[in-house]
C-alpha cells in the first residue's frame, strides 16, 4: 500500500468520520491542540528565557527544566493526540500540503532536540554560552513549527 493510499484510507476511517461529523468536533479538537502547544512551547520558553538570562535568574536552569517537564510532556501528549485527529479529518489534503510537510520536519527536529541537546544544555553545571545557543535554537525550532502550522491553511 502506498502512503497516499494509506492517507485515503485514513481520511475515511472512523476517527476521520467523527472529526467530520458534528460541526463542533474540529474546532474543539483544534482548540485543545492550541492549549497543548501553549503548554508545550510556553514551558520550554520559560527554560529558554532562563538560559538566556532573561527570567528566573535565581534558579538553576536544570531545576526549572525538571520541574516544568511534566507540564511540557502533558502539552506534548495533548498535541500528539489532537494533531493526528485533525490530520485524519482530511489526510490526503494535509499529506500533499507543503507547509504541513515543513511543519512535520520541524516538529520531529524540535522534539528530538528538546529531549536531547536542549535538556543536556539546561541541566549542565554552567550552561553559559552553550546554554544561550541552545535556547536560541530551541526558540527558532518551535517558532518554525508554529509558523509552518499556521501557513497550512494558506497554501
Amino acid at each position, binding site marked *: 500500500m502506498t502512503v497516499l493510499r494509506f492517507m485515503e484510507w485514513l481520511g475515511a476511517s472512523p476517527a476521520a468520520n467523527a472529526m467530520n461529523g458534528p460541526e463542533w468536533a474540529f474546532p474543539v479538537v483544534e482548540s485543545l491542540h492550541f492549549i497543548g502547544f501553549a503548554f508545550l512551547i510556553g514551558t520550554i520558553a520559560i527554560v529558554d528565557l532562563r538560559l538566556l538570562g532573561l*527570567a*528566573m535568574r535565581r534558579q538553576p536552569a536544570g531545576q526549572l527544566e525538571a*520541574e516544568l517537564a511534566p*507540564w511540557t510532556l502533558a502539552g506534548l501528549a495533548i498535541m500528539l493526540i489532537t494533531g493526528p485527529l485533525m490530520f485524519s479529518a482530511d489526510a490526503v489534503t494535509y499529506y500533499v500540503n507543503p507547509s504541513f510537510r515543513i511543519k512535520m520536519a520541524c516538529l520531529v527536529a524540535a522534539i528530538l532536540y528538546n529531549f536531547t541537546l536542549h535538556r543536556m544544555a539546561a541541566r549542565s553545571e554552567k550552561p553559559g554560552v552553550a546554554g544561550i545557543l541552545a535556547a536560541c535554537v530551541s526558540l527558532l525550532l518551535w517558532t518554525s513549527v508554529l509558523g509552518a502550522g499556521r501557513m497550512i491553511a494558506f497554501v
Partner: protein
Amino acid sequence: MSLLSFCQWLQETDVSVAIREGALLYPIIGGIHLLAIALFGGMVLASDVRLLGWGLRRESVTDLIGQLRIWKWVGGVLVVVTGLLLAWCEPIKLYHSKSFWIKMTLFACVGLHALIFRSSVYGSTVALDQSPAMPLRAKLAAALSLLLWAGLVFSGRLIAFDS
C-alpha cells in the same frame, strides 16, 4: 453611529483592506498571535500551577510570579495587539459572531478577576509564601485564571467556524 455602521466603516479603512487582501499579512499576524498565546499561556500555566500546588513547589511564589510577570505582559500585549489587528480586518463578521461576543464577555471576566484577586493574591505573594498552606482564595484565583485562559482559546478558535 450604531456599532454595526462603525464596523462597516472600520472594514473599509485602508488597514482593514491591507490585512484582508495582503497575501502574507494575515497569516503572519495570525502566527504572531499564536506565538503570543503560547508565551502568555506558559506564564499563566507556571504561575497558576504553583498557586494550586500542582508543581514548581521548589520555587517561591514571589520568585515565580515576580520574575515571570514581565513576560506575561509581553505575551499579553502581543496577543491583544495582534488580536485587534485580526479583528480590524473583519469587523462585520465579528459583529455577527456569537463566539466573538462570548470571547469579549470572557475578557470582561478577566478584568473582574484582576480586580478581585490582584491585591489579595498576585500582589501579596510574600504573605502567600509565609502562609503554612496555600489559602483558598489563591487556589481559586489560579483555577479561574486557567479556566478563563482556556475559555478565551476556545471561543477565539470557534470564531473562525461561526457561520
